[in-house]
């Protein structure tokens, strides 16, 4: 938190958690997909479902999927903008169990057919937390350039990935590891102090044991 979290952000109202946070979740999902969204299935949970209409949570999320920022005056008219952009959106309710009350599940398909599934929560003051990516745990706030690596759980994978980042002088701010089972599917979430060059991301994607590399840029 810094001084401009106290005075700021400049945002479209009415709620930092239900409006600004929803824009940010949509925007992060759009960036992780790395191409314009063609089809979006949105599932609201808990308080997002109960009070979302009055807070414009649906409009905010769609605005984020279109790449808008939290202060974009176009947020209230985002449904019309989505139609113009050829993006189809369906919105439903869902029970995600004991997930954070302000949670949403997104199933996205991009213009070239790329797919992304994400569960994220708006945790207050416009801050968000991604909680699941493509069915696997992966927690991050979306405030840093973030690399998400889906790999096979085998010795040496973490070393190889971090060594490659070190060679390109990317400092790691925070890193988390998850796995579904021993020797099964695993996930690395790496939050970095600066942007990771595209060539490095491509190298990562071709490494032995790595299934998918997803990247969140701050640009």
């Amino acid at each position: 938190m810094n001084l401009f979290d106290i005075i700021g952000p400049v945002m479209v109202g009415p709620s930092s958690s239900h409006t600004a946070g929803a824009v940010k979740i949509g925007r992060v999902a759009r960036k992780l997909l790395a191409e314009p969204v063609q089809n979006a299935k949105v599932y609201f949970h808990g308080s997002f479902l109960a009070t979302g209409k009055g807070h414009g949570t649906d409009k905010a999320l769609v605005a984020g999927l279109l790449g808008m920022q939290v202060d974009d005056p176009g947020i209230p008219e985002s449904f019309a903008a989505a139609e113009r952009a050829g993006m189809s959106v369906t919105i439903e309710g869902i029970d995600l169990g004991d997930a954070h009350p302000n949670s949403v599940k997104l199933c996205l398909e991009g213009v070239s057919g790329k797919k992304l599934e994400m569960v994220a929560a708006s945790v207050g003051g416009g801050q968000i937390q991604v909680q699941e990516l493509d069915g696997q745990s992966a927690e991050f706030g979306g405030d840093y350039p973030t690399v998400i690596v889906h790999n096979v759980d085998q010795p040496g994978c973490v070393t190889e990935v971090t060594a490659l980042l070190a060679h390109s002088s990317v400092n790691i701010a925070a890193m988390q590891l998850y796995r579904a089972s021993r020797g099964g599917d695993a996930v690395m979430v790496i939050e970095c102090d600066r942007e990771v060059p595209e060539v490095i991301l491509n190298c990562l994607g071709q490494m032995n044991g790595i299934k998918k590399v997803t990247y969140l840029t701050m640009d």
Partner: protein
Amino acid sequence: MYKSLEKLCEMEKETGKPFWKIVQEDDCRERGVAEEESFAQMHAMYTAMREADADYDEERRSASGLVGTEAKKMRLARESKNLLCGDFIGKVMEKALRTSESNACMKRIVAAPTAGSCGVVPAVLISLQEEKGFTEEQMTEALYVTAGIGGVIASRAFLAGAAGGCQAEIGSASAMAAGGAVYLLGGDARQIANAAALALKNLLGLACDPVAGLVEVPCVKRNVMGAVNAMTSADLTMAGIMSRIPPDEVIDAMRSIGRCMHEDLRETGKGGLAGTPTGVKIREQMAGM
């Protein structure tokens, strides 16, 4: 960010630098930015506050229809010259309505410290500038003062209704605005901290009980109360009336009260006004929308 108003007062005494400058230098250190950049950014926040005030649409209502058009009524009442509070406080009230109604109507505002309490600080600061002709530099410095107070409250207690009730949102905004007003009136750090303490003391225990969970009822009108409370706290301070409880301890009291507050009174839309028969009826109508 600083964790103590007392510490900021001591630093002003030791270094001879004004409150706002100490807050700015801390921002530059924390984010690794130059003073000019930080100042320009803070000035942009003030500009955005003025734009939000100017952008108010007198005819627009929120999606729920619960709020909107109130600032117009206040303007007309001011023009009729019949306000008990006088024209200047009437202006403060009108401006608090303008920004917080704009927020409810999905227009662009500056969270200060939150979206729900976004009308308080601009109502006080912009009215003072229009009344007394303060420069843009002075207004930006005053905004640093408000941010510094908010930073201390965030460090010692909380700024979110879900964490500590409305005292954490409107209470904090009112304390911040009171400090900013005292700075513009020529007050030093101790007077700034005193005004913040007086303002916050008046709002301790205030529940966050929004009808249907929306940032509308009673939030919009509480912005008016927070802004006027900031003005009276500034006047009390400049008259030499001091808080018997030190400012940091007042903030700590806000934290302990918030911790005792039942979940129904912390932005869940269940207790208080939200739980009245009318509040429940509105929630049910909203669910059918």
